[in-house]
């Protein structure tokens, strides 16, 4: 499957103002009346360089949350698919409409910060089993009825990269009249949602180690379930650790061959409200083992084996009747092959 094809268009108006955009086509094509496929803007923002230590972005942009979100090109991460944690707990590629300030602290080498004000979150869109995947507006039908704020600290120190970020937003972007009729809290930060994550990358002599942990929450998940009946969790968490080694790192031809292994754990119903229905299948562990080969910097050929282990499926949440219903296996394996490029 052609998972993604992205077209980048940028323009520099002058030395201080630039435009960046990415338009993405998913799943090869979009056809009227048929499911699947998507065309979406991943980014479309203006960048204003205030000085050499500070710039502002405005428009549809990707906030600095997690590792893959901001840096999601296929030749920058191991594995054919993006990590599970940064798919369901951090819904990468997560972009919103707003304004962001990015800077560095001149007095401390390597210390960077960011702060952004964006449109809020959409708890009505959440679906049980897909984590926070369907919560962001992604620039579609977003309003200022609710808002989100995010901030991060990023520190480069020798061969390490450390980052921590947080996000807090109102979860209901509906008008006061609709909210009142649904008996649900409203306002800019009504039905709050939050997420925090920290990550670390170490690179030296071909060795690369990555670790990330993230946790999110919806304190008023019971109200969300009562109104939208989508069985959302009060809290989810996920973490992964990955190690890879580029056995060609001494090559002067910019080639690399990186075998890697990654362990991921995530629980998309770590804590449920009183009206939530538990599903053990959302408590998942993954082991990925594979390799990435880059004949040149911009091209990658990937392969990996995924071993997945989950808890018991809650049969009460399975509505598809027999025999259409497929059996659920708690342990399964999948082989992924892929190619990627960026230039």
């Amino acid at each position, binding site marked *: 499957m052609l998972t993604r094809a992205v077209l980048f268009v*940028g323009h*520099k108006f002058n*030395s201080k103002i*630039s435009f*960046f955009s990415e338009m993405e086509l998913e799943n090869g094509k979009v056809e009227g009346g048929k499911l699947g496929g998507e065309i979406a803007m991943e980014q479309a923002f203006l960048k204003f*360089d205030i000085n*050499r*230590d500070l*710039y502002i972005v405005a428009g549809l942009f990707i906030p600095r949350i997690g590792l893959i979100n*901001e*840096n999601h*090109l296929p*030749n*920058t991460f191991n594995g054919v698919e993006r990590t599970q944690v940064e798919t369901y707990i951090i819904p990468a590629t997560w972009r919103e409409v707003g304004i962001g300030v*990015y800077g*560095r*602290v*001149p*007095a*401390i*080498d*390597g210390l*960077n910060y960011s702060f952004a004000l964006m449109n809020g979150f959409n708890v009505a869109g959440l679906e049980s089993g897909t984590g926070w995947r369907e919560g962001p507006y992604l620039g579609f039908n977003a309003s200022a009825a609710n808002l989100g704020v995010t901030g991060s600290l*990023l520190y*480069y*120190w*020798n*061969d*390490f*990269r450390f980052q921590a970020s947080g996000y807090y937003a109102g979860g209901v972007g509906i008008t006061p009249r609709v909210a009142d009729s649904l008996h649900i809290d409203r306002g800019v930060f009504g039905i709050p949602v939050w997420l925090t994550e920290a990550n670390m990358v170490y*690179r030296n002599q071909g060795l690369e180690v990555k670790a990330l942990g993230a946790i999110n929450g919806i304190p008023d998940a019971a109200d969300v379930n009562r109104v939208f009946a989508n069985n959302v969790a009060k809290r989810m968490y996920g973490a992964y650790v990955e190690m890879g080694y580029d056995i060609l790192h001494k090559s002067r031809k*910019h080639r690399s061959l990186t075998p890697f292994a990654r362990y991921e754990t995530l629980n998309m119903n770590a804590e449920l409200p009183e009206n939530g229905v538990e599903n053990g299948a959302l408590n998942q562990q993954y082991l990925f083992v594979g390799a990435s080969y880059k004949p040149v*910097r*911009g091209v990658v050929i990937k392969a990996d084996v995924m071993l997945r282990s989950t808890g018991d499926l809650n049969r009460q949440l399975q509505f598809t009747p027999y025999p259409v219903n497929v059996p659920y296996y708690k342990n399964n394996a999948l082989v992924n092959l892929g190619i990627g490029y*960026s*230039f």
Partner: protein
Amino acid sequence: MSNRRTFLKQACGATCGLIASVLLGDLVKAAPVPGKKPYKAEMDEQNRVNIPLEALEEEVLTIRVKDLEYDVLLYRKTVEAGVEYKAVYLRCTHFDNGLKVTPGGLVCSMHGSRFDFEGNVTESPAQRPLLQFPVTANTETNFITIQIQNHEQ
């Protein structure tokens, strides 16, 4: 039995202490130097920037050149024949963003591209090396001259 347990406890404690002290020693040894303010300079009519050798106290020097959009990094490299000087433009070749100088190299905080002090890409998404400027060192006048060129491309 008690002696064996005590011995194991002490041995484990000593090993952990040894590892911790080695790591702590590495951390202290590798502690980053607080950021220095960039060296300020101006271009002459031929787009040359002259830097006194004494300004290059360490291996690298960030130079803020008036009328240049991004800083310039001057790098002193020790080679068999002596010393070589390199000057690179601190503009990421991926998204035209200013690069940060860290003890481990040059990094772009926008998408994580990394470069060594000579401007070679060490981490994608950037694919092209940084723009280099010719450098000449005059040991008689003790000045290093950087020829600024092609920076508007």
